[in-house]
Each structure stands twice: as C-alpha cells, then as structure tokens.
C-alpha cells in the first residue's frame, strides 16, 4: 500500500525544472509511441521538433502559429492566476474572428485606413463579449465557469459555421462555406516580404510584456496574484473580487478576440469554418507550461507552435497521423500536472516508518 503525503517545503529548483522534466517525459513517451507505429523514433522526433526550425520559411510559419497561441495564453495566465478557470479562449477567439469578419466584409469596397483598426477593434470587443457572458453568469448566479466557457466554445463555433454558410458566405463562391476574400485595406500587413509573418505576432509579444507589466508593477496585478495565491487573504484585505474577475476575463477575452481577428485578417484572409486548429485549447497548455507567467508563455508558445508545425511536416513526410500532435499536447499537459503534483506531494510506502 502507498499513500500520498504533502511535502513540507516544495523545492524551488523543481518548480522551474518541472516543465523541462515534463518535456523530457513527453519525448520519451513519443519514442515509445513512434516505435509502436513502426516509425524510427529519432527521425520522427527530428521532423516533429527540429525540422520546423530548419529554415526561415518554416520559422516564419512557426511564428504564425505562435501568435494566436501566445495571445490566448497570456490572457489565460492572468485568469488562472486569479483562480478564474476560463477554458473559453477558443470560443472567444472564434467570436473575435467572426466579429472582425463582419466589419471587414461590410466595408469590403472601402480603401480607408480605418477599416483594419475597426475590424481589429470589432474582434477585440467580440472576444470580450464572449468572455463577458460566462463571467456575468458566474458572478450573478455562481455558475461553474469551466462548464459555461466550454459551452460557449461550441456556441461560438456553430455561430461561426452558421455565418459562413449563411449571411457571410461569398455570393460568388460557388456555394462553398467561405466568405469573400478581404480587401487589401482589411488585411494585416506582413513584416517581411515572402513570409506570412504579420503584425499579429508583434501584438502577441507586446501582450506578453503588457501581461508581465500588469502582474508585477501594478496594484491591480498584485491583487490578482493575492487572489490566486490566497483567497482568504484577498478577502481579508478587502479586494474587490468582482472587479478583478471582470478585469481578467475581459482582458483574456480581448486578447483571444484579437488572436481570432488577426488570423482572419492575417494569414487566412477570409472567414472560413476552421479558423483555429484548437489554439484556444492548446493555449491552456501554453499557459501552464509557461508557469502562468506571461513571459514564460512566450517560450512555451514557441514550443507548442513547433509541435503544431512538426505535426504537419510529420504527416507530409512520414505519414504520421496529425492526431499525434493532439496526443503529444495531451501527454505534455499530463506530465506537467503530474510533475507539479509531485513537487507538492510525495508517495509514501507503508513499510517505511513515518516521521
């Protein structure tokens, strides 16, 4: 028999090392998995993790995937720091994509410089709105935020599918469920010729620094940290929990909305049903891998983006199913949570004497 005992003093070294240990465990798991699939594990890992960084084109594509991951993860980091379990970044991202598309398509004939800012703003506001409803339900009726935000992911997805099949469908698109291509004025400028690296990636990196600034330098950020670390202390100090909840949820919704609108006005260039390959869900892993620290999220977002890219390459080059990426992500989160658990607890075997 064994039982679990809380450690008196969690090792501070291990707190930092835990993501690395989790990654190593995930890679070992990957080796076993690929061997079982009769693929050379080293080749597979090379394609999955090294090849995405092998040339400038691939690095560019990796950054394109990193952008939305990072935007969502920064918002989620703040939410989770404040004990607001927002699982709805995916829905908020889709709402942002939809809201931005409505503006971009409404002014499709305009060449005004204001179209793009308006579209971006519409995306941000839509993301905030999508985060606001579950927040309101939680604060007003004490509903479970995890459940409502997940539900709103699906509502957002089907609303978007309805829109591209209905009011926003391209009239000249032969009935395909896609909108018309956005005008030049409603498209995010790329940063380098010949790559798809667009302004949204700068937004993402900027958002990480803003998130870091808020958490460490402002009184509001301090209150968020207290709330997450020790709720009774926050109540004792008289911090306004509703205000903080609204702030983190709207901030997170705004960033996810920006991620969504940056996708449709950036690399995609139109509204399509599959705007996101689950960025909003993967961002949860990014947030935890980055230790809920906005700057840590940058590194974590790069790692997950590499995994996304590698998944595509592995499918093309080695015929490995793309579902492997999802599996990798899941296993990574599993090992990460397990490592965190063993930082705080340890297993005791009953034979040993207890002290």
């Amino acid at each position, binding site marked *: 028999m064994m039982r679990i005992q809380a450690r008196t003093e969690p090792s501070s070294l291990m707190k930092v090392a835990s993501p690395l240990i989790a990654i190593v465990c995930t890679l070992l798991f990957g080796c076993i998995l690929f061997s079982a699939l009769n693929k050379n594990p080293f080749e597979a890992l090379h394609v999955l993790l090294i090849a995405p960084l092998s040339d400038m084109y691939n690095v560019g594509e990796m950054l394109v995937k990193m952008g939305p991951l990072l935007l969502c993860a920064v918002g989620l980091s703040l939410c989770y720091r404040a004990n607001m379990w927002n699982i709805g970044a995916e829905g908020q991202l889709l709402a942002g994509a939809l809201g931005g598309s409505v503006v971009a398509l409404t002014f499709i004939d305009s060449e005004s410089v204001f179209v793009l800012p308006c579209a971006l703003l519409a995306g941000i506001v839509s993301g905030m709105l999508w985060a606001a409803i579950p927040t309101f339900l939680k604060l007003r009726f004490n509903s479970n935020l995890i459940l409502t935000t997940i539900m709103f992911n699906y509502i957002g997805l089907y609303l978007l599918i309805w829109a591209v099949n209905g009011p926003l469908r391209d009239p000249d698109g032969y009935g395909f469920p896609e909108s018309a291509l956005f005008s030049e004025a409603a498209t995010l400028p790329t940063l380098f010729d010949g790559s798809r690296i667009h302004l949204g990636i700068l937004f993402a990196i900027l958002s990480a620094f803003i998130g870091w600034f808020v958490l460490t330098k402002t*009184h509001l950020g*301090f209150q968020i*940290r207290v709330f997450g*670390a020790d709720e*009774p202390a926050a109540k004792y*100090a008289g911090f306004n929990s509703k205000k903080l909840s609204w702030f983190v949820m709207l901030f997170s919704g705004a960033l996810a909305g920006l991620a969504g609108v940056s996708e449709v006005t950036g690399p995609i260039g139109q509204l399509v049903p599959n705007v996101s390959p689950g960025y909003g869900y993967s961002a949860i892993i990014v947030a935890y891998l980055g230790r809920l620290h906005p700057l840590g999220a940058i590194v974590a977002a790069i790692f997950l983006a590499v995994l996304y890219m590698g998944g595509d390459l592995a499918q093309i080059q080695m015929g490995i199913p793309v579902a492997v990426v999802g599996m990798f992500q899941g296993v990574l989160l599993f090992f990460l949570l397990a490592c965190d658990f063993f930082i705080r607890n340890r297993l005791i075997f009953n034979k040993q004497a207890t002290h």
Partner: protein
Amino acid sequence: MAETLKKRHSIARIELANITKQYPGCLANDSVSLTLMPGEIHALLGENGAGKSTLVKTIYGVVAPDSGDILWDGKAVEIKSPSKARELGIGMVFQHFSLFETLTVSQNIELCLSKTQLTSIGNLSHKISELSTKYGLNVDPSRYVHSLSIGERQRVEIMRCLVQSVKLLILDEPTSVLTPQEVSGLFVVLRTLAKEGCSILFISHKLHEVTEICQQATILRAGKVIATCEPARETPATIAKMMVGELAEQDAGYSKKEGHHTLFTVSALNLTTKQPFGTSLKNINFELKAGEILGIAGVAGNGQDELMAIISGEDERNTGHALSLEEQSIGQLSAGQRRKLGMAYVPEERLGRGAVPDMSLTENTLLTHSQGFIKKGLVQWQPLKAYANKLIVQYKVKCHGEFSEAKSLSGGNLQKFIMGREIGQNPKVLICAHPTWGVDVGAALAIHQALLALRDQGAAILLVSEDIDELFLLADRMAAVCDGHLSPVVKTADTSIDQIGQWMAGTFISTPAHHTEETTA
C-alpha cells in the same frame, strides 16, 4: 538523589532518559530526561518552540527520537506508533479535538478501538455510562458530538482514553478552551484519575493552574530541561521567571483608561450563521469608544468568528444600520471600503489570511497598506520595501529581511509584523482577534505594549480573546459572548474572573431585560 530514593519505593510509570531529537535547523529536544510515578500529575512547561510537543509526540509514538531510552514500568520499550502507545496504556488528548461531529459519542469512541478491545468491553454504551458516573464525567453515550459544548467534547476525548484503561494520560493545553468553571470540573476528574494510580502529563501555559494541580513540573527552554520544581512550593511568578527570565514581570500592571466619545457602534445585530455548525448572532449591542480597549471574552465557537467577519466586512451580507462608524452606517460597505474609512483588523489566522504564505513581507505589507504606495495604479516598490524594513526593525520581527516569505517566519514574529502593519495605518478602530494566541512571552509583551500605545493615541480597540488573563490585563471594559449572545459590558475594574467566567458559560442569557439595560447604560 531524590529520584533514586523514589525508585526504591516503586517503579516509575514512565522514565525518559536523554531523549534527543534533531529537526533540520532545530534541536527540538536536547537530552531531555523526565520521570513520572504512578498517580503523579506532572506539568510540562515552556514557551512555544521549547520542545514540549516534540517530547509528548515522542511518548505517544508519533515522533521517533534520534537517541535516548524510554522505560515503561521499568522495562525498556520502543514506542513506534500511536497504536503501540495505546497498547501500553498511554492516552493523549490533543488541543484540537479529533471527533466526528455527525456521529454520537459512543460511535466516536468505538472508532478508535480495536476489535479485541471491543469484544472485551462488551456493551460499549454501558461501559461509557459506568465510567462516566465513576469519574463524574457526565458523558451521555447516545448524544451527537455537534450538540456538545467544547468542555463536553473534551470529556469525550478523555473518556476515549479511559475506555482503553489508560495508565498515562497526556493533556495538551486542556484548559485553553474551557471556562473557569469547566476548568475546576476537569481538575476534579484529573484528581480522581490520579488517585486511581493514573499518571498525568499536563501541558499548560496557565501557571496558576499548574501550581493548583501538579505535584511536579519540568520546565523546558530551547529543547533542554532547565529546571524541575514542585509547583506547590512556587508561585506563578517564580515559575514564569524560570520559563522566560525577567520578561514576565514587565508584562503586568498596565493602567486602565476611560474612553472619550463613541467611535463605533453595533446595535441590534442579528445574523444567521452560514456555517453548518456555526453560531448565529443574537441581538448584539455595544459601543466602542476612542481611547479604550473593549475586551470580549468567550470560549471559541460562541460567535466570535461570525462577529469578527461581519464587522470587518468579510461576511459580505448587508447589515445596514446595525454597524456604524462615527455615526455613519457602514453595514452596506465592503471590507475594502471599511478599511479606507480607518478600520484595521488583525485576524486570528495569521498565515493564509493575515498574510499570504508565499509572498514576501514587502508584498504582505501592501496587502492591507496601500495608501501612499500606489501612484497612478503602479506600485511604488522601493518606498514600500523601505517601509517594510522599518516595520521589521520597529517591531523586532525576526527574519532575514523584507524579502522573506511570510511562511518562513515563526507565528509570533509574523503576528508582530501583522500587528505593526495594521497599527502603522493609524486606524481609528482596530479589531483584534486572539492577538497572542500561540505566541511566546517576549512577543506577547511587544504586542501588548503596541496595543496599549495605539489606545493611548486615541484609537478604539476591540479585543476578542480566549485568554481571560490577557483580557484582564489589557481591556478597559469587558463583556463575554456565549452562544451568539453578548453579555453586559462592564468596566474591568468592576468585575471579576468569576463573573466573566459565569458569563462565558451563559448565565446572563436568561435575563434579556437586564441585558439590554446594562449595555445601553
């Protein structure tokens, strides 16, 4: 010499020889020796952190000593676990009871008995009733534990030991949760037990109790036995001196003050508790005046927590006009708004409520003291650090520096820090719960003096404490709570420990007319 003499007469019930236990960074027991004869009531004394708990945990098999021997009835034994200790006949009543509230007394007792014990006892309820009459414990086996008072629960714990025919009973601060009358009841039980030959090891901070009931005392300081004495031949003051040196004498004889104008009022406050076994507040009325300390006595769980939470605003229910500060009703304000109006609060739980365990002392300063350290929403960390350092120096908080995490401080030092932080905001009203609970004598002295200095500056202080001696020492006026009722408020000089003790037991409740008359007077 005396000890060898005693041994010739009879064999010691338990003899500890040179028990040493080293924890990382702390020598908890340093070659401690202790002998208990059958039928002896023996006091184990010392400040917090002196090593008392480690020693009794060693006896009870919870802690394995690094070296040293234990002789039980003259034979060397190794007590590897609490069940082994119980087998030998060692029983322990912890400070915090381990009873299931939703079970009956006999079910609770049954839970800790082995199958062989149960079969040898036969009818457990019978046995409980029998022992209950024999020792005057007055424990009804069929009652549910949640319906019992704290004193009764303690007797259930003692009963649990008696059922297992205990030969050595260890009591960890048994009287800290009892009213004075319940304490005398407990002492009767203990004396009867001792007469039967049961040895009792009695841990207490209350020295007059030790002089009253114990035949022998062992005093620990920093893990070592520094003195043994016969308490009957000493006075509380001389024993205190042995425990802590000269400090205890300083912490006495403070002058009483009379408050000026009323700052804070609680009128006709009724509040249903949110907790399943909490206490509802029933028509609470009192006034808190500038420049006075109002002490509220009471056994834990009689509505103190509920009262503190509603006054601080942590209980967010709107009480409207029931609470007012400077004639402005504040019952509708949040905890943060009340703080801005000049209320400060020292909670009972230091770590996890009064301070965030994983944050530095600087950050914990900011927890409640943000005034002057925020500019345009940004935290001014440098001045804040300097201020935190100032608090550390001023209140002699032992720590590495402002960067130390709150959880790295001892209870007493953290309490001094929290007290300093709250007083540093120059509050008009300070609400203070159990300020020196579990704090050593030196820190308690510092906290007492800080409270009195704040009072003399004109602040109104509400002091809720279980320590009746502390209340008599500090409070200018006093009242007691029992079952959510507040007793009349009287001047400390006009009352006695006996009267407050009776009020703690609720004798004032049956006369509500008298009650309202007195409080408004």
